[in-house]
């Protein structure tokens, strides 16, 4: 079937309605599934549970006092958590201090053994995953872990349970242990800062009481907590719902335009009907019926496609009651797209229609159709703009997190904690790394906490080549700083802000009596979790940090498999330090990649809807051109008859489309500049990428749309002018 006949039968409009219906069905389903997840989890735990972050840790006795109050049924608390890494199993687990009733209050059942009891004061309860890793199928109750008796194992908590699933990887204990690892903070012995309170009746009363007893405490209902964990997914769903509704709007416009083209071509037929006695209302009802039938069929197809897609992608997302309203809703929204062209056609007088002199534009100025197309094109471009800003924002987030680090960089450090004895990693251990085949660069960083929680670090010269640390003011440490041993340093943005450091004032920072001139400030908003450093100087001053922790950033040359040198480093350390957990080797980007992975996946899903939207707006632009060509066929013929070349006619059409695309481009840019800060903040992307970064993409899309939309004009150019001028073929 030729494109022309597809247009005439309104197939493209129908396809657009089907796509939009399927999209709405799917995203509504996803939204419903997310809501249900929260509801199910809250129901599982009980809606009367309140999570409280206290300003200071409190003792077990104080928590027990709370339980005596009539408003409160039960209270449990969690204290400090130490992480243990086992190189043997490559597994990290957390040792979590809790109150004895912790599993009961949080509704976590035991798979083996018993709960905490005063008879075994130093007993531990393993999470299911810890048990699986360390003991496999075996029942570990009665055995010992780090010298403590294992008294029970928690039943497996489903991974969807975002709040509690972490307990799968924890070892619960009720008596504090002395830290042995290099990074363990001296434990706040008996303190419980994070508590769960089960209200006896209304959680409101319990919350009021807690707020009164613990001024400054932060209180969260359990539902809010679950909702918080699912917030990014819910935001994504919300954006997808808005996108799907936008798609439906665009589909309505496309339907209206295809109907207009179709109606225009049937002008004479309508005139004959009017002459034969049809009233305007007969014309109106006939065209509305025809359009409604098309929407019914396409909506039905879209609905079936949506159901199939949901079952294939996420069965739980099917059958949410609002999905039943999709088809009637679609009907309601697209109704103007059917009624408007029909109403327009019904206005034609029989004489005009028979002469084929229609109400379709006797003016050179833009019609309402032009404006609608500009608007919908602007919506499509705006969506692309926002998505591109999101992608740029995520990339910028990565850059700010890790500078120029890429997937070839390893982070080699002492385990945060280990069930084996973990000797400290030292700068000299770099010998074991540097000559490993495939290692390009190994940069030691020695860091040590100074007074008042300030952390200073000495770094090797390779930091310059590594491109690590995005410097936001001043400069990075340079080669001369290392070779000449200059007393210069960088400070983190947060430190500079707290201290009011301004580079133009040549500020100095004193570390253990040695003054350093601050030459640069690095961005630390996102990297503190992995690189908690305030002051950074060259390793010529490493002696100032005698008990510093050493870690290495290792860049691989990428020539071979990246896993080979990684495994070789682990092997060498195991050989040199048998029976010791000396190193933990991870991909420097791994953690960040996990964080941005979600956004990237979201951007991909939104990208699909953007592509669909752009497809529809391109369809609209093509529809507009076909409409113009149909309306102006004779005009073009006249122009050809008086000497216009086909190229001039083509140029006329292209210029008109370019005018539309240009207007939409401007609208989308203005809208994008105004809306992108809010849009990006929904996804927690704080560094706003510059708005002009998306202009090339917008221009490219606009250009493609102009080219595609102008293609139908070639047909007119290829017809001899005699064929275009009315009544010329006698």
């Amino acid at each position, binding site marked *: 079937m030729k494109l022309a006949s597809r247009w005439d039968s309104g197939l493209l409009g129908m396809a657009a309605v089907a796509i939009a219906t399927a999209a709405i069905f799917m995203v509504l389903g996803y939204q419903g599934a997310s809501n249900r997840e929260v509801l199910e989890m809250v129901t599982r735990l009980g809606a009367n549970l309140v999570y409280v972050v206290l300003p200071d840790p409190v003792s077990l006795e104080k928590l027990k006092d709370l339980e005596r109050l009539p408003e409160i049924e039960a209270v449990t608390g969690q204290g400090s958590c130490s992480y243990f890494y086992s190189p043997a199993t490559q597994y990290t687990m957390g040792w979590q201090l809790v109150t004895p009733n912790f599993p009961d209050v949080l509704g976590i059942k035991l798979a083996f053994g018993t709960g905490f009891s005063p008879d075994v004061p130093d007993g531990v309860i393993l999470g299911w995953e810890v048990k699986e890793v360390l003991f496999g199928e075996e029942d570990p109750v009665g055995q010992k872990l780090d010298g403590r008796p294992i008294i029970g194992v928690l039943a497996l908590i489903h991974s969807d349970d975002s709040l509690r699933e972490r307990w799968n990887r924890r070892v619960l204990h009720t008596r504090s242990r002395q830290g042995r690892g290099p990074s363990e903070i001296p434990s706040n012995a008996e303190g419980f800062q994070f508590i769960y309170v089960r209200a006896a009746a209304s959680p409101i009363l319990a919350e009021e009481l807690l707020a009164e007893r613990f001024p400054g405490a932060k209180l969260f209902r359990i539902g809010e907590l679950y909702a918080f964990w699912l917030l990014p997914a819910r935001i994504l769903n919300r954006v997808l719902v808005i996108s799907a509704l936008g798609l439906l709007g665009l589909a309505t416009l496309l339907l209206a335009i295809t109907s207009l083209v179709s109606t225009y071509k049937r002008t004479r037929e309508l005139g004959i009907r009017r002459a034969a006695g049809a009233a305007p209302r007969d014309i109106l009802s006939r065209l509305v019926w025809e359009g409604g039938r098309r929407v019914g069929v396409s909506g039905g197809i879209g609905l079936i496609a949506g159901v199939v897609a949901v079952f294939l992608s996420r069965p739980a997302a099917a059958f949410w009651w609002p999905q039943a309203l999709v088809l009637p809703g679609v009907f309601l929204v697209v109704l103007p797209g059917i009624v408007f062209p029909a109403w327009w056609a019904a206005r034609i007088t029989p004489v005009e229609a028979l002469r084929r002199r229609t109400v379709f534009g006797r003016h050179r100025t833009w019609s309402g159709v032009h404006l609608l197309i500009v608007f919908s094109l602007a919506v499509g471009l705006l969506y692309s703009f926002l998505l591109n800003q999101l992608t740029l924002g995520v990339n910028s987030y990565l850059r700010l997190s890790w500078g120029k680090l890429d997937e070839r960089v390893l982070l080699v450090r002492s385990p945060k904690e280990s069930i084996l004895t973990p000797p400290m990693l030292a700068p000299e251990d770099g010998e074991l790394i540097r000559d490993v085949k495939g290692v390009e660069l190994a940069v030691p960083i020695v860091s040590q906490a100074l007074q008042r929680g300030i952390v200073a670090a000495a770094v090797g010269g390779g930091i310059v080549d590594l491109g690590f640390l995005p410097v936001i003011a001043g400069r990075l440490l340079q080669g001369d700083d290392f070779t000449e041993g200059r007393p210069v340093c960088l400070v983190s943005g947060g430190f500079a802000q707290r201290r009011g450091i301004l580079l133009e004032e040549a500020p100095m920072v004193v570390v253990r009596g040695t003054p350093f001139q601050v030459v640069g400030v690095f961005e630390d908003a996102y990297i503190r979790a992995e690189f908690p450093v305030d002051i950074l100087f060259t390793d010529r001053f490493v002696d100032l940090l005698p008990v510093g922790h050493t870690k290495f950033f290792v860049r691989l040359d990428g020539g071979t498999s990246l896993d080979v040198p990684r495994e070789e480093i682990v092997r060498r350390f195991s050989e040199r330090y048998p029976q010791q957990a000396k190193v933990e080797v991870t991909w420097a980007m791994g953690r960040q990649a996990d964080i941005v992975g979600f956004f990237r996946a979201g951007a991909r899903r939104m990208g699909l809807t953007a592509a669909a939207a752009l497809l529809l707006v391109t369809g609209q632009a093509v529809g507009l051109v076909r409409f113009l060509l149909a309306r102006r066929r004779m005009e073009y013929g*006249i*122009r050809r*008859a008086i000497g*216009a070349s086909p190229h001039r006619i083509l140029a006329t059409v292209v210029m008109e489309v370019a005018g539309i695309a240009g207007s939409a481009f401007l609208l989308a840019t203005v809208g994008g500049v105004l809306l992108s800060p809010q849009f990006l903040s929904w996804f927690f992307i704080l560094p706003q990428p510059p708005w002009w970064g998306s202009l090339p993409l917008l221009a490219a899309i606009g250009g493609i749309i102009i080219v595609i939309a102008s293609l139908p004009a070639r047909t007119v150019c290829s017809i001899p002018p005699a064929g275009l*001028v009315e009544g010329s073929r006698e």
Partner: protein
Amino acid sequence: MIEVIEVTKRYRLGRMEVAALRGVTLEVSPGERLTIQGPSGSGKSTLLNMIGLLDLPTSGEIRIQGKETRKLSELERSRLRNRLVGFVFQRFNLIPYLSAWENVALPGEYAGIRRRERRARALKLLKSVGLAERASHLPAELSGGEEQRVAIARALFMRPALVLADEPTGNLDTEAGRRVVSLLRGINAQGAAVVVVTHNPEVGAIGTRTLYLKDGRLHLPLE
């Protein structure tokens, strides 16, 4: 000036092939007034379109000022049409959103004439056809006779050597038709060759030579 040599034109209508012109040969001399008559469907308009380079013959040759038009590119044909030929259609074919003077000046746009000159020349032409005061009106605001006079003014804009008129009075009342015929005579008097297609004997009478077309074949001039 124009030589039409053994021109045939066939159209395909579904599975059928229809011959609109069958081996037509004629010559139009400079300054000549030629009328072509014939019943509806005889191929008059098709012949006029061929002469005016609006369409290409299926076979045969059309020469304008000695040039073989078949070998010309689309662009060259467009330019030739713009410079040498002026069209007057039965249904006027004015562009509805352009004013009278803009319609008249349209050929100048494709000849690269500056707007100011186009306007001056168009106003002069409108004055010559008695429509000076209607220059800014849209076609919808003009009567049929006035529209046709605008169309004639447009046909004269490039001072063409040949004016082709296809049933120029077909949509007009008697009085307006007479005025159009008078204008066509005037054009011819200024030196342009005029070819008029009509089945109206009154209009056909303006020709210094008349050809009769039937079933796509040219017959001897009517006596």
